């Protein structure tokens, strides 16, 4: 079995699977059970400043999107940071860290945006013996109305300022957790790096309203006839999170900055995808909230099987491996020509590819006698829609045309690599060297 040990900012954990700061990590009872179940690390539920803790709503705090069999696809919440006293959390953290020295324990923190508040809490957190801190600049509801969470995360200057304070008053790794509720994710990441952050983690939850109750005429979850936007997470947000991670990983200004990947990670494969996209480890919340702590066992066995099959003996051998292959659209090879091809033995004649291509694409699928569906190469632009709507896996595949062959659609020979920057239709084309 492959060695899953990871070293993230010098923090060792037996595997790259950490629980994200959220209800699963809210208290000693949970965290002990999570560690016993096999989780490599935990980011404790976000701590607030000394004094009376925040209060949560007493009505429903979650909304959800489901597939047909009630498979949870997306979760939305209006929960705040920990609603338990700081003192209690710190005591529990101290005890847990002592009993689980081989696991990562990170304190997530959110206090008002002034130096005194951070200066006050950091030494107390340090005393717990935890391995590092994560600055919660992400919570998109409630806390942001009070000038914290996403309200800080949306202003790069604030991120840099608070990060600097933390580096000044705390001597272990500082991770800055980013909010996705921003236009260009590179800016807050750059600010974190400028402030001296050791790593960024992303994403926190996305502003969302999952449903509107059509009788109450109010968003769900509905609290006494009203609702407010919540934060979206779970499988549905994975593509957004992955893209944001890739932007930071390949941005020259942040390239090499360690990343802890978060957002919709539900299986070992999701985790592997985040890691090859540049994440040193991953954090999980919704998958644990949906299936319980035991899911980590599948993540562990799946990742190690995949590593064994691929011949990787340690995680650092594949972390970031896909980053060089993320590029701008303008550099994609326009001479890479493929055609959809239908495997007639696998086809079940449902006609979905036909309806999709005929009605909404390029009229490149013919419906023939006896419900036989065939691609018309002269029309196929290789958009991949038919592949995506076909209910049979691998029934339609994209077949690459050989160099030198003539594309029956354009009548042009398949040539060498050439991209938009070199294309004659591009007014700003760079003339290719003769």
């Amino acid at each position, binding site marked *: 079995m492959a060695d899953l040990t990871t070293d993230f900012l010098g923090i060792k954990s037996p595997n790259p699977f950490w629980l994200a700061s959220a209800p699963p990590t809210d208290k000693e009872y949970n965290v002990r059970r999570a560690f016993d179940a096999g989780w490599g690390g935990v980011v404790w539920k976000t701590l607030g400043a000394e004094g009376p803790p925040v209060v949560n709503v007493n009505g429903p705090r979650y909304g959800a999107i489901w*597939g*047909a*069999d*009630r498979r949870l696809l997306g979760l939305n919440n209006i929960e705040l940071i920990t609603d338990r006293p700081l003192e209690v959390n710190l005591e529990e953290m101290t005890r847990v860290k002592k009993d689980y020295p081989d696991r990562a324990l990170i304190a997530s923190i959110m206090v008002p945006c002034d130096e005194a508040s951070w200066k006050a809490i950091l030494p107390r957190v340090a005393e717990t013996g935890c391995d590092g801190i994560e600055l919660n600049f992400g919570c998109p509801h409630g806390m942001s109305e009070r000038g914290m969470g996403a309200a800080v995360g949306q202003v790069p200057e604030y991120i840099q300022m608070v990060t600097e304070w933390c580096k000044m008053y705390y001597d272990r790794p500082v991770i800055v957790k980013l909010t996705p509720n921003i236009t260009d994710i590179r800016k807050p990441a750059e600010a974190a790096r400028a402030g001296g952050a050791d790593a960024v983690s992303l994403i926190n939850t996305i502003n969302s309203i999952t449903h509107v109750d059509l009788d109450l005429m109010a968003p769900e979850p509905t609290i006494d006839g009203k609702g407010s936007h919540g934060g979206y997470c779970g499988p549905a947000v994975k593509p957004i999170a992955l893209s944001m991670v890739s932007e930071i990983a390949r941005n020259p200004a942040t390239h090499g900055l360690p990343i802890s990947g978060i957002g919709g990670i539900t299986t070992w494969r999701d985790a592997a995808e985040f890691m090859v996209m540049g994440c040193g480890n991953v954090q999980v919340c919704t998958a644990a909230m949906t299936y319980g702590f035991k899911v980590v066992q599948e993540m562990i066995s799946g990742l190690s099987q995949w590593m064994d099959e691929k011949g990787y003996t340690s995680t650092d051998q594949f972390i970031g491996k896909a980053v060089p292959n993320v590029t701008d659209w303008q550099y994609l090879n326009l001479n890479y020509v493929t055609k959809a091809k239908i495997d007639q033995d696998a086809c*079940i*004649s*449902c*006609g*979905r590819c*036909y*309806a999709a291509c005929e009605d909404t694409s390029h009229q490149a699928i013919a*419906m023939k006698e006896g*419900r036989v569906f065939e691609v018309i190469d002269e029309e196929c632009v290789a958009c991949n829609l038919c592949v995506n709507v076909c*209910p*049979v896996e691998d029934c339609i595949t994209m077949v690459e045309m050989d160099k030198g062959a003539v594309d029956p659609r354009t009548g042009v020979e398949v040539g060498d690599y050439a991209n938009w920057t070199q294309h004659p239709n591009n007014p700003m084309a760079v003339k290719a060297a003769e």
Partner: protein
Amino acid sequence: MTPSPRTDGIAAGRLDEAHLDRNFSDLHPPYEPHEAHVAADRCYFCHDAPCMEACPTSIDIPLFIRQIATGTPEAAAKTIFEQNILGGMCARVCPTETLCEEVCVREVAEGKPVEIGRLQRYATDRMMARDVHPFTRAAPTGKRVAIVGAGPAGLACAHRLAMKGHDVVIHDAREKPGGLNEYGIASYKSTGGFAQAEVDWLLEIGGITIQTGSVLGRDVTLEGLKADHDAVFLGMGLAGVNALGLTGDDMAGSLDAVSFIADLRQADDLATLPVGRDVVVIGGGMTAVDAAVQSKLLGAQTVTIAYRRGQDRMAASVFEQELATAKGVHILTNVQPVALHGNGKLEAVEFEYTEDRDGRLAGTGETVRIPADQCFRAIGQTLEGAPEALEIAGGKIAVTGAGRTSVAGVWAGGDCALGGDDLTVTAVAEGRDAAEDIHAALMA
């Protein structure tokens, strides 16, 4: 001693009430809402869907399933009823395994079709439970149409005509309307008095009067109906049954399967219905299977279906055959009856083995005797009481186009008319199409 399956002869009450209740409950229990959503999600919403083509009434199956999936089963029901007003009964009795579900792409691909029939039941049950009738009548046309037979063909025809604004009178020989829905369909397919509830619901459209106990040829004549109405539709089914043509056919214990089933459907208490210990059913179609299975469910100890050709030639679908064997019925093939034995009261049926000689059935001379207290004939129904003026072809009323008979102003559809399978859904399609044709003719 209380009777049991072992009790010799013909006896009632072989099983206790709880047992009977269990045996005669829904063959396919209705879906719970969550099950329906999961089942609906399996549908691929096929382009030009093959299932739709296979449905004799051409229900827009992908559309109604999608309407269920999106939480609007009532809209789904409307989609169904627009094509098939007896969509509720069809959902229960259609041999879907040889119709829509047989060609469902998921049946072809995985051997597990989308369960169209059960989904159809889910949608139609929902609307009928709300007791709303989704259609209203067009402005009255002043035209009057007479219908003979309140079976699926007659009812579908009547409903469509009423919708178009015509006034309809249906004459039916029996005590209750519904035709074989009421008197023929197996009990476990149509439970809880559904057939009558459906007729009542259908009549909510208005403009339809049913005269039960009114027999064509006795109480009314075709000439009379024609004279008093603008058009006549005959949906009289097949009221006669074939005989074995053997001596002893009239012996006690020798019955026709259709009457046995009708008695069963009309029994208030199944525990009072007598059935043999050893039952033999002769035939190979749906009626044979229904008679055999229900005998078994009533508590008969041994039940044998005896069919003269090979199993692959049986008219009952493979699903029906498997249902029979699963219930403990023995299917014996390549045997033809040659004699009924007994002393005034049936004791055994003697069969001769057969073989296929160049496509022709021939006896081998070898025989076998099967003990039987009861023998049901299920060897086909015949047209009975058709007015003489009509041209008959192949034992049925000859029709062209949408059910036009040889006599102007007279249409026919369902089992009594030539063409199409003898199925509830086909009768509905033919009744509906004839109504459209009648409407076009009356309004021309």
